[in-house]
């Protein structure tokens, strides 16, 4: 299982820059287009359990990484508490997912969606690392709202319907409440900053 481990640090090179707003729109469009592509081309692009494992691992790592940046850069107590919760909870989800796919003997295999998520995450982190104060808090929280909405959509509409292994499917269903609670939480903060 050398393709992933519990190293939660961002292992991706930072190469791209773009404004936060176009990044969010780009991420949503990318997720939708990858989705359409996946369902249209079932022969070569069907989502396998190995792809699902890679998406779950990648999606959790991305939010852990963003949370670590927020702990470094934000001075807002609510934002910092939220960021710490993201690190704690997504680490738990990640560990549970890794334990399950290891038990099932599934080796994660990246697909277009994993690549898209990783590229968008690099852009977002580059953007965050250039900000501070209220501008940082707003960019971080706005993105957390969009990201959790996008990931919930991907889990519900793509991962759960595609999962072949019953335990993997059950795990995906069981992690949704965490993502929904996080979405509610960051929306609450968003309304105050």
């Amino acid at each position, binding site marked *: 299982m050398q393709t992933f481990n519990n190293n939660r640090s961002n292992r991706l090179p930072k190469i791209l820059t773009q404004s936060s707003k176009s990044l969010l729109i780009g991420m949503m469009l990318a997720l939708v287009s990858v989705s359409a592509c996946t369902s249209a081309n079932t022969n070569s692009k069907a989502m396998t359990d190995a792809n699902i494992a890679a998406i779950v691992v990648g999606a959790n790592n991305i939010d852990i990484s963003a949370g670590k940046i927020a702990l470094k850069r934000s001075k807002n107590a609510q934002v910092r*508490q939220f960021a710490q*919760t993201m690190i*704690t*909870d997504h680490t*738990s*989800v990640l560990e*549970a997912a890794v334990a399950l796919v290891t038990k099932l003997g599934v080796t994660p295999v990246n697909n277009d969606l994993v690549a898209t998520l990783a590229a968008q995450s690099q852009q977002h982190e580059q953007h965050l690392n250039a900000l501070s104060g209220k501008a940082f808090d707003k960019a971080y929280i706005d993105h957390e709202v969009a990201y959790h909405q996008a990931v919930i959509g991907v889990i519900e509409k793509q991962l759960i319907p595609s999962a072949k292994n019953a335990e993997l499917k059950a795990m995906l269903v*069981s*992690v949704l*409440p*965490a993502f*929904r*609670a*996080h979405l*509610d*939480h960051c929306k*609450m903060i968003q309304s105050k900053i």
Partner: protein
Amino acid sequence: MNFIRLNHNPSALSRGITFILYFAFLSTSLAATRVQNSALQVKQKTVIHQVNIVGFKFVPERLEVAVGDRVTWTNNDIAPHSVIISQSNTAKKGKEITPRLEPKQSFSFQVTDGINYQCGIHPSMQGKIIIQSVDKR
């Protein structure tokens, strides 16, 4: 609801007294059994209510208890949770009811009045403890 416990060492004598007190208690009114008789060191057995924390929810979300009952929250979830007085409560908002509960940890709390509560880590997780009226028991 009518269990009686004596606070000294169990012996034949104390068991005998327990029985006598038990029947004496049963013959009194329901309201009377709810009164603690400190002179005889007899008290009603504490009722413990369980709240399961699972799927980022308190189950049940709404619980009816009597004053003096205990509520035990058990975290059967994947992530840590806690219980604090809800931010929507006017008094004591944010006051800690349980410490941070890691998965599989429990905490018991004796109820003195009705409360709206929430998770201290995930504010969208909400629960409610309501004091039930005496005649409902």
